């Protein structure tokens, strides 16, 4: 176990099941699922039209941003979600931020893929094409003319961390982690290292991503990860009838602090970041290693680095995407890593409620876990009716039970395995 303790001071999230952390737990208790036909984009003509979208208008939350930023937000959903998340928490952290030392405060966030919503520029593209001009190049060039470092489209990925650096006065660094489904999970893990090794005393971490757009749905659908829509619920983690995941979107911000900072300012943290495991399959980009060797190692490392025993784990928030192969492999790896009777530790995936937010999956699920800890709630696998393996405690009903220690798992395309161990400091 590493020496310096790392605490979570504050957090917030924009999720399809709740705009803001407080509304998220209400969504869990009410068993709300955002697995719906989505409305923001016209999907007539393609076979994928279910996604978990943040349906609320978020503009009130970033109304104070500059016009340049708001212009980009029109075309960049990731930026909109992140700005809204900051807007949600800014009043609450207003007294905390002035305590940050600029040289000891860093930003570390996971960011999803760049998607330019070309359908919004249909008329422009048509005009270029009819003049025999290279429409895509001309379109991008036309959007490159303002006098700031904020592009209308096609920004470098560090835009999001630099944006947060301005908000939190973070000069130590502004880093992005770009590792698909574990991007924000890795960002949170690396943030803990940065605090433990004394590089920073505060790290603003988290991530942002959205798959709720035409091109992402088509590309993930064509890979067979998102099932074709049939007008019914589509995502069934750990169920025998599981057939694919649910495209989602989210942004989350987590403020992590050193023990010394917490003591110096007499703060009351909500949780302690205990440890993590982070491994690479080194197998194939297209599939996880069927042996699960690296996945098992990541789970083991997370628990051993946390300095706890398997018996102390009160809940596991699984990656549980709802794809046939991944859910099965995750359960097998949990059993091999934790080496005990798996009928005792409650396991659930919450992706059937809020969808798979890819780069923001880790932070969305961490924020949800912190809410579950705060409210002593174990959530059920909402859309599971026929568990795929009865030897595991795949939670069938929501119930009340204190959570002191919990794991949250995320596994990425390309074989990256990142597992976090969290301790509830409110018990």
């Amino acid at each position, binding site marked *: 176990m590493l020496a310096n303790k790392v605490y979570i001071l504050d957090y917030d999230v924009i999720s399809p099941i709740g705009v803001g952390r407080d509304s998220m737990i209400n969504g869990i208790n009410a068993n709300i699922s955002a697995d719906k036909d989505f409305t923001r984009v016209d999907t007539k003509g393609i076979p994928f039209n279910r996604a978990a979208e943040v349906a609320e208008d978020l503009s009130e939350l970033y109304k104070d941003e500059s016009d340049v930023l708001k212009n980009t937000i029109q075309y960049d959903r990731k930026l909109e979600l992140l700005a809204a998340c900051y807007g949600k928490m800014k009043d609450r952290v207003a007294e905390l931020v002035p305590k940050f030392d600029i040289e000891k405060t860093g930003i570390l966030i996971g960011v999803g893929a760049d998607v330019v919503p070309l359908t919004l520029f249909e008329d422009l593209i048509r005009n270029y094409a009819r003049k025999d001009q290279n429409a895509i190049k001309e379109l991008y*060039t036309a959007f490159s003319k303002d006098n700031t470092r904020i592009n209308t489209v096609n920004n*470098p990925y560090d835009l999001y961390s630099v944006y947060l650096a301005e908000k939190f006065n973070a000069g130590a660094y502004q880093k992005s982690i770009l590792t698909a489904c574990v991007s924000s999970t890795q960002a949170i893990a690396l943030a803990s290292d940065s605090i433990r090794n004394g590089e920073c005393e505060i790290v603003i971490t988290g991530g942002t991503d959205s798959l709720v757009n035409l091109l992402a749905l088509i590309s993930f659908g064509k*890979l067979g990860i998102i099932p074709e829509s049939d007008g019914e619920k589509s995502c069934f983690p750990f169920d025998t009838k599981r057939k694919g995941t649910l495209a989602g979107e989210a942004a989350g911000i987590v403020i992590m602090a050193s023990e010394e900072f917490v003591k110096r300012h007499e703060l009351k943290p909500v949780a302690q970041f205990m440890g993590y495991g982070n491994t690479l399959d080194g197998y194939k980009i297209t599939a996880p290693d069927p042996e699960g060797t690296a996945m098992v190692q990541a789970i083991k490392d997370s628990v051993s680095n946390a300095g706890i025993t398997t018996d102390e784990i009160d809940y596991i928030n699984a990656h549980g995407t709802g794809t046939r192969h991944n859910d099965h492999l995750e359960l097998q790896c949990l059993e091999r890593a934790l080496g005990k009777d798996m009928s005792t530790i409650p396991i659930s995936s919450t992706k059937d409620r809020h969808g798979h937010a890819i780069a923001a999956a880790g932070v969305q699920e961490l924020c949800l876990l912190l809410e579950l800890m705060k409210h002593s709630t174990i959530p059920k696998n909402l859309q599971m009716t026929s568990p795929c393996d009865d030897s595991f405690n795949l939670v069938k009903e929501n119930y009340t039970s204190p959570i002191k220690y919990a794991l949250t798992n995320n596994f990425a395309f390309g074989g990256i395995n990142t597992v976090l161990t969290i301790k509830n400091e409110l018990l």
Partner: protein
Amino acid sequence: MAIYVKGYSSYLPESFEEELMSAVEKTKYTLGQLELDKDSEFFPQRSDQKIMRNDTKASIVAIQELIQEVGLSKQELSAASLFVSNGAFVESAEKYFKKIPTIFSDPSNESNSEKKNYEIYRSSPPLVALETLHNSMMSFIGQYAGINNHNFTFGNTSISTFYAVQEANLSLKKGIAENIFVSASNCAGSYSFLSNSATLGYKENWKESNAGGHLLLTNDSKNAKCAITDVNSNKKVPRLNSRLIERNWLDLFPEVKSDLLIHSGAYDSETTLSDQKYCELHHDKVITLFNEFGNMGTSNILVGIIHAIGLLSDTIQIIDIADRDVYGRESLIRIERC
């Protein structure tokens, strides 16, 4: 306390061509291209090639050449860490959208969104999500090199490689791994050009290149190519609302002066010349790689380190490598002869 470069490999642009970007705005740039060694025994398998960018293919060859040279065992490789930085993840702005203008221009699609969406769906390459996967470079390196441990992909401006080296420096000092690969690869092309020129503002004589490489870093000085003795960056908050370039590298220069300063340069020759003049005000011997290679984005720092290693001699024992990314963030890495 220093860390050491145990081995390195790189791939650099070998041909340069002028590319027209916009006929309307009359923007153009010079693009440095890689020559792939398709006969190499280390060239990726055919099934992987179709979802790899060209710079990824070059990277896979280079990592295997490095491993062969340094002779790490399978166990040592499996336990090694891998920190990666990438430039753009798409080689060409229009590669995945080439049929979109035709679809939008078809009059029968203007009032029929179902037909239009179906045609977009039909025209989308089936593997686009894998081709543009952010961590594809890292996952392919893991696959071909057999690396299974700690890993991150940082990105995607030039400071990302500084962050990767900084993380390796901290990880080695903490004893998390004995061997850490830092890999950088810059995918230049129209997508990269548009992103960078929009952030910085377009200028004449723009030049950027595909390039990359790998460093193997350890705590062990035995047979090391050089020591990395300083890893530092300006602790300032970048400003998004201004493109003003503030040169403050002076704050990063260590007390003991180096024998040579290598700076990355900018994306255009005029700004690079201003960088050169600033550096010459504070240092006696300054060079830039821009004139030969153009800006190599995320590979600037890594190629700078490798170039510097080649220049170490009895008279040049300490070299500083300085960089500024598109958000104005400055960094400096110092290497010393062992």
